[in-house]
């Protein structure tokens, strides 16, 4: 099969609450998949399950031919899954470039070459001017871009973006949208959780909608936007019937 990621009947429970319930889907190599849903839908949990932070209560996860359901996050990262954090988690006592070097080390073992790769990646996301700046001076918007740089410096096969548009100006949104849209051409498969729907509608080949832990839609952007179940999930019962 050509699918790079397969989620097979995955469910996850916190105490008595099922955060993710019987979710199944696959992602093809080179796809850009949007993942949307109201708050509390289970998107972060799904990401944590894929990234190895959580082990699914039920179901299996396959990546690139490997069964990774029970793998810890550092192992998952090493086989090529990168992720960003919704609330940025920079290394506070390091500089911007050093933050990116950590992920760059996956492919460049020497400190100087990792630094070069890190600077290159930072330039890619427009942070070239901040290379040696202490990371604590960055604004949230810049920190989000740093998250993107960190993920990409790993030269991942699959990247999980988590709301990377928050805090960006309209011009920056446009630039970032084009940038992310170009990633599949570079051989990077993308799953994109985003509330700025414009970005996803423009770039995604497919959109999945999660609500209350369940996958309620999975198809082309235009079709998903019109799907009554999706409208209901976002706007409530009355609006969908109106």
């Amino acid at each position: 099969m050509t699918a790079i990621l397969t989620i097979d009947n995955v469910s996850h429970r916190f105490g008595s609450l099922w955060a993710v319930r019987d979710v199944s889907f696959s992602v093809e190599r080179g796809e850009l998949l949007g993942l949307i849903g109201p708050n509390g839908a289970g998107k972060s949990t799904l990401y944590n399950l894929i990234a190895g932070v959580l082990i699914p209560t039920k179901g299996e996860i396959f990546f690139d031919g490997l069964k990774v359901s029970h793998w810890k996050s550092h192992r998952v990262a090493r086989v090529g899954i990168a992720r960003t954090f919704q609330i940025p988690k920079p290394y506070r006592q390091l500089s911007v470039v050093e933050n990116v070097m950590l992920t760059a080390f996956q492919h460049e073992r020497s400190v100087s070459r990792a630094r070069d790769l890190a600077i290159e990646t930072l330039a890619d996301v427009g942070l070239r001017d901040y290379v040696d700046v202490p990371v604590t001076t960055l604004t949230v918007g810049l920190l989000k871009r740093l998250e993107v740089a960190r993920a990409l410096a790993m030269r991942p096969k699959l990247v999980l973006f988590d709301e990377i548009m928050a805090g960006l100006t309209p011009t920056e949104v446009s630039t970032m949208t084009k940038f992310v849209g170009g990633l599949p051409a570079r051989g990077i498969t993308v799953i994109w959780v985003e509330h700025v729907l414009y970005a996803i509608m423009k770039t995604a080949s497919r959109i999945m909608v999660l609500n209350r832990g369940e996958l309620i839609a999975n198809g082309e952007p235009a079709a998903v936007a019109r799907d009554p179940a999706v409208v209901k999930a976002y706007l409530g019962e009355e609006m969908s019937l109106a």
Partner: protein
Amino acid sequence: MSLDVTQQSTGRLALPFLPRRGARVSVLEIFIFIVCLALAIIGLPQTLQDVAVLTFLWAGLALAWNIAGGYAGLISFGHAAFFGIGAYTSTILFVHLGLTPWIGIWCGGALAALFGALLALICARLRGPFFILSTLAAAEVVRIGALNWASLTGGPEGLSIPPVAGMTSMVFASKAAYVAMMLLFLLVVYAITKLLEGSRYGYYLFSVRDDSDAASAAGVNPLTVRTAAMALSAGLTGIGGSLFAQYFLYLDPTFVISPELSFQFGLLAAVGGLGTAIGPVLGSFLITPMSELLRSYLGNQAAGLHLVIYSALLIVVMLYFPGGIAGALTRIVSRKGKL
């Protein structure tokens, strides 16, 4: 606590003035090294030689502590256990089995490193104060064990090394030789620290210290990194303990494995500047001579007074200069640079 922000070079030499993270040396470090070397070679009056021995030794031990506490973020108040394990191992091997300390110190270091790794594994999931308290508890277990296993360690009466000078027994007639030995220890630990902080492994340590979830997502395994850091830190501390045994020639669990000693390593590193290489050195160079001189001039009373002063100093430094002496130096120099 990155010292990278300042970059003052001295023109021709193109060396930075202040220490920077990584293997490149700075003018300040070279200056300090030359001064120490001079002191060791030229010689000092008898009383000051003891001070020099301890200053260099505690500096090396503070550096070793810093690898776990400052670089890996594993603040331990139990390092005296590693010190004691090193000291007792080499001494027991020498006194009971006749094994030369030149080999014995490595055995001590290895055993201490093993204990360090074990401790890190046991306390792997613990954070913050719980980790610190666990290190305290573990050290107390070792101390009480040493105190009561009299057949091995001599118990409360302690263990002595015969004060007979000899190369194979690593006992020296002249204090100057000890000064040189401790300086060598300090230099080796310093070199290890500098190499570590500029290497990929050093960055792994910093990442796990600053945000272990992000580090995991970057492919770094926090458990192996912490365990390795603790093992290295413990091993170096153990070697320092063995060297101390060869100098002091008497070991007693109440002093050698005490919480006060553990605290001292952290104190020197923190006042000097946690997470930098030069910090623990500066901390020891400032505090140890003062401490020893106070102790010798004030006799018994000093036992209380000098600790009163240092603890007050520590509180003030922690609240107002969390970067320690090294951090304050950087801030002063970078401000001058901007003028």
